[in-house]
């Protein structure tokens, strides 16, 4: 997995609440057996019309945001389906960080498995960063994972909370399965005991 340390990028404002994973990547693109190549269909139904032409009003189609690496979004980003295709599409497009007041649980976890940092901030701070993002490509937002800080283009700094283990894995690009395999003795012991106490499983 790609490491995440710091990021300085253009942020795309998406003030809509409840952006669900069906919106992020519609079902017709889930028929792949690969993880890659989904960026072109990120937000497909909001981004393209029925003939496949770009809808100019959609934020990621605007010249200022085509190279966005951050999304600043309304409440409850990533709700709905557990499809990891959503973070795959986001990462494939080049987005490495999403900032919102809240994230749906499964989506939040899926981000960390794909080198994406989801940042939760209070409503007034998300609002301030949304305004900053609306300035376009000249307003670069800085993210420092080590320090757990986001800095707006005007130098306003906000601290965010993050689980220490998730931070460690993201900073170092660690593969969860490899880490768990180091604890295989504990799993063996648990499994043997469970087979005694709950043999029907």
């Amino acid at each position, binding site marked *: 997995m790609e490491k995440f340390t710091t990021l300085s990028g253009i942020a795309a404002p998406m003030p809509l609440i409840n952006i669900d994973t069906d919106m992020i990547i519609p079902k017709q693109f*889930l028929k792949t057996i690969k993880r890659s190549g989904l960026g072109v269909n990120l937000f497909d139904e909001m981004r393209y019309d029925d003939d496949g032409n770009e809808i100019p009003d959609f934020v990621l189609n605007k010249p200022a945001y085509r190279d966005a690496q951050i999304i600043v979004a309304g409440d409850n980003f990533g709700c709905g389906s557990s499809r990891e295709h959503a973070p795959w599409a986001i990462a494939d497009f080049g987005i490495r960080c999403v900032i919102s007041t809240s*994230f*749906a649980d499964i989506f939040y976890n899926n981000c960390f498995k794909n080198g994406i940092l989801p940042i939760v901030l209070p409503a007034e701070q998300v609002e301030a960063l949304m305004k900053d993002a609306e300035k376009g490509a000249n307003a670069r937002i800085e993210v420092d994972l080590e320090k757990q800080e986001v800095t707006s283009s005007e130098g306003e700094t906000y601290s965010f909370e993050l*689980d220490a283990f998730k931070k460690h894995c993201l900073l170092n690009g660690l593969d969860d399965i490899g880490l768990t395999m180091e604890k295989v003795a504990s799993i063996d012991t648990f499994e043997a005991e*469970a087979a005694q106490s709950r043999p029907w499983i």
Partner: protein
Amino acid sequence: MSPKTLYDKIWDAHVAHEADDGTCLLYIDRHLVHEVTSPQAFEGLRMTGRTVRAPDKTIAVPDHNVPTTPGRDDPKNMTEDSAIQVAALDTNAKEFGIHYYPVSDVRQGIVHIVGPEQGWTLPGMTVVCGDSHTATHGAFGALAHGIGTSEVEHVLATQTLIQKKSKNMKVEITGKLAPGVTAKDIVLTIIGATGTAGGTGYVIEYCGEAIRDLSMEGRMTICNMAIEGGARAGLIAPDETTFQYCKGRPHAPKGAQWEAALNWWKTLYSDDDAAWDKVLTIRAEDIAPTVTWGTSPEDVLPITASVPAADSFTGGKVGAAQRALDYMGLTAGTPLRDVEIDTVFIGSCTNGRIEDLRAAAAILKGKKIAVKRAMIVPGSGLVRAQAEEEGLADIFKEAGFEWRLAGCSMCLAMNPDQLAPGERCAATSNRNFEGRQGRGGRTHLMSPAMAAAAAVTGKLTDVRELM
């Protein structure tokens, strides 16, 4: 011993390792697998030379892509990419030696219907699947939730998940439901009350008299939509209803093991003095037949209400409501009962069980549909067979419904069952998101009885008028 919630008890029984910071390895008793979220996970195993740690606890069934029309075991009758995903699951199931129900097997169906039906899902278990509606299995008092594909690979390789404990939320439904009001109305009402993020960070336990009175089918409907309220998992404490449902299922314990299991299952309830981080109480008597008007499962109203105005909301919801009204083609102030329907879809992991089909048939008996298209998609081949045996299929066919084969179908429309742009659907499924049932399609969520009533009148309808 300090008092515990049901969630606490199941959690504690499954921690295989706990790190100093509280990060746990949670042991997984059942891993359900379908064709859409698993190919990349199996490919990951191959690339790293890993195997499936517990193939005997891993169950696979194709459901999202499969057509619901005859001839579907011929890959030529699927789109090429769908056929590739189903073929990949066939190959992976065989190569890694996991339990498998192919399309040709009468037991095939929606993974969340097949699991309980075959007795794979039992009280006190941990159950995961690369699908958010895994929450369904919480109806058995099993800790069950959806995971992403990276986590599917993690469970395949290690039979564990890296987890931190969620908080405890209690949702109590007191009293008794009025006639015509069902489990689906309860859960839609709950989501309306909490919002789609109200359960984020919590495991919800549903309790109270109205929940206890529900059948296993009804309980599965409730827990199925826990995810729609933001909770990864919902739970209902197991009781006689649960034990009776499990007894005799193909993979349920038997003989002395059944007795041992039962002894443990009977300890699985929240202690009277257990601590809750959040509590919501709703009176069953206050719940009416309920439908959604917008594009989020929290956009619910009693069928007796009218389409709301966007400016009746506050904050970010104002813009979201206006967007939803535009998308749904609805005008504020229109009585919901005046909204005309084109299509009816009865099925999905929320409402594709035999009880759901019985409820729909009770309304449809001797009547004809007044909509362009109506389809019944049983949740499994066995549900389908039972409905035929009980004569329900004949009622559906005589009413003008299409009687389909089992699968996820138009719930998420990954197979050919889709809405056309602008088409308005009364659906028993779980999501009314933009484009969910087909690009531009408009979905109103409701109970099977309500969907059947809409089929008969051609409009959103208060089922109580047809009872």
